[in-house]
């Protein structure tokens, strides 16, 4: 199967030589540029490729999105779309009461917002809890730590669609879990027609899929805590839970902030995982705001780019606010 070692070695060497030659080739014009710009302004050169891609495929689309959001109709090119001013936003915000999504003209958007909030809150709390417990356990003196670490991590590598498919297959009416329940003498539970269960499993599956990543971040933090602190605590006969509370948690705080922030971002962005699992149902109990935007732009028979764009601008502003909050938080902890 694998080619002989000598062959692999020589292939690697040729590749190495090739890359080295390529880099030297690039170095030549780069030196020229450096002479022209000076050392410090080389930063712009290094930033340039990323900036080009970023402007073309992120920044420009964001601006087009804003343009979309003030136009209406079914045409695709912004130049062919009639200007409607704040019409899409007004439609989106046409509510009797903002506390009751059902009272809004476009109730699906607001139900999506409410569900996303609920989902994200519970998911972040549970995610932190479970990855913390797992990290602490993995940090104990146990055999086969590498193996267990890999076990918890590997779902991170599965695509959201695959994750959802796996669990859907287990949770459906005639799935493995219901087979287990009936074998134990229980009744089948139809998880996906009960709003509470559907949300529970959406959160559960999301934690299943991602907790490995957060566990590793926390584990890195735990291992960086100086051991003599615990030694001293043990000398003083401090109870373990107290040592955890007084030593572990404060020193782990920076890592916890990273975990909370990343989980928060991902929670708000959740779409395909939950969509494949529950289809947003029952009713609209697990309809997420990103799913709403996607469906409004693509799946609905009239592809309503204007309304979808308006919703995404609103979401974008909220996300930007969250990011600023994150910046503030990270400033505080580094200060």
């Amino acid at each position, binding site marked *: 199967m694998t080619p002989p070692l000598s062959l692999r070695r020589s292939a690697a060497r040729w590749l190495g030589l090739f890359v080295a030659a390529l880099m030297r080739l690039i170095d030549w014009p780069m030196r020229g540029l450096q002479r022209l710009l000076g050392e410090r302004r080389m930063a712009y050169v290094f930033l340039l490729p990323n900036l080009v891609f*970023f402007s073309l495929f*992120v920044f420009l689309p964001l601006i087009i999105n804003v343009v979309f959001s003030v136009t209406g109709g079914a045409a695709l090119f912004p130049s062919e779309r009639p200007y409607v001013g704040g019409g899409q936003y007004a439609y989106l915000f046409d509510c009797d009461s903002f506390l009751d999504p059902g009272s809004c003209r476009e109730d699906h958007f607001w139900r999506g917002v409410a569900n996303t909030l609920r989902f994200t809150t519970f998911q972040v709390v549970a995610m932190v809890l479970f990855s913390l417990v797992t990290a602490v356990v993995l940090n*104990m003196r146990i055999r086969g730590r590498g193996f267990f670490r890999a076990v918890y991590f590997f779902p991170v590598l599965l695509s959201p*669609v695959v994750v959802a498919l796996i669990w859907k297959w287990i949770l459906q009416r005639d799935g493995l879990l219901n087979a287990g329940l009936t074998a134990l003498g229980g009744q089948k539970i139809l998880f996906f027609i009960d709003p509470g269960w559907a949300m529970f499993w959406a959160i559960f599956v999301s934690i299943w899929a991602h907790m490995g990543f957060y566990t590793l971040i926390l584990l*890195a933090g735990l291992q960086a805590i100086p051991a003599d602190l615990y030694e001293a605590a043990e000398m003083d006969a401090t109870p373990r839970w107290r040592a955890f509370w007084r030593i572990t948690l404060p020193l782990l705080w920076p890592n916890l902030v990273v975990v909370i922030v990343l989980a928060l971002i991902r929670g708000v962005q959740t779409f395909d995982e939950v969509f494949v699992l529950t289809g947003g149902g029952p009713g609209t109990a697990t309809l997420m705001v990103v799913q709403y935007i996607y469906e409004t732009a693509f799946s609905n028979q009239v592809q309503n780019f204007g309304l979808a764009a308006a919703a995404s601008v609103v979401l974008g502003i909220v*996300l930007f606010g969250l990011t600023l909050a994150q910046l503030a938080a990270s400033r505080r902890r580094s200060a």
Partner: protein
Amino acid sequence: MNRVARLLLVRRKSGRWHWTDIAAYSYLALGVVLMFGPVLWLVLSSFKTQAGLLEFPPSLLPMSQREVMVQGFPQPLPLFSATLDDGSTRVLAQVRRIGIVAQMVDPENPAQQFRIPIDKRTPVREFKLATENYTEPLERFAFTRFLGNSVFVTVVATLITLLINSMAAYALSIYEFKGKNAAMLMVVGTLMIPITIILVPVYLVITKLGLVNSLWAVILPGAATPTGVFLLRQYMLTLPRDLIEAARMDKASEWQIYWRIVMPLAMPALAVLAIFSIMWRWNEFLWPLAVLTKTEVHTLQIGLNAFQGELQTQWHYLLAMTVATLAPVALVFVFLQRFITTGIANTGMK
């Protein structure tokens, strides 16, 4: 290393089992079942026949009904275990079913016929892998073409992602320059924007660039990822500045410093980004579906989903093809597992 050794030492004296140890091992054992079980179940299910998938309660292993050739019948007949009127059970082959009565024969003695009510018989089954779930769709589609496209997209996109993001991270971590804060704000500000919500505008850009139905339409848009810049920059900030200053003294060009010094040192962070890029590119579905309509540029994820019709999901194919696309990922993980997990743990997420 030393630190780890000391960590181990601070624990309780060895040889004694504390209740926390037992709790920890039970927790981990449960974790193994919970994490591996579902995937194992997927793999087992993918080898079941279409009928086998519909069974309740589901059988653990892929089973299918046994069939035998019986003299006088051109087709193989399905075997059942039937309960006769006198209460005894016999293995019989079913000739046909009329309404709620099955007409059955003894496979050894085809002349002997039985009429059995259908609720008095159960199928005789044997272990059998339904490999046709895999072979049929793979034969129907240009599998090697799709695989080639997917590999091309994944490899090229990952290389470009690594290159341009590491360059940007290098600029943002090593230099002080005008506009640095604006650039940082842009990176962080877009960290949270999911691509799903700007799908239509990006499609317009791709159309204007004339890239529809080209693999580059899939490769380019995601190449500059804020997450990648962020991750790499955080790591590069921890690199010792003296090294860079020393290199400058030695008249190394900025490009050489980036390439010969910073890149090798940033290997762990690069590895993490590479893994995430590979996973993401390999699994991407919505965006390629929007820009790639021609068969010759389809990637695996699109090609293997072509059997998803309007009105039915063919679970047996769906599960099998899911496992088929999962296999390369699993292989990567098995070989690079240690590298990945320690890589993430070391990326300086502090």
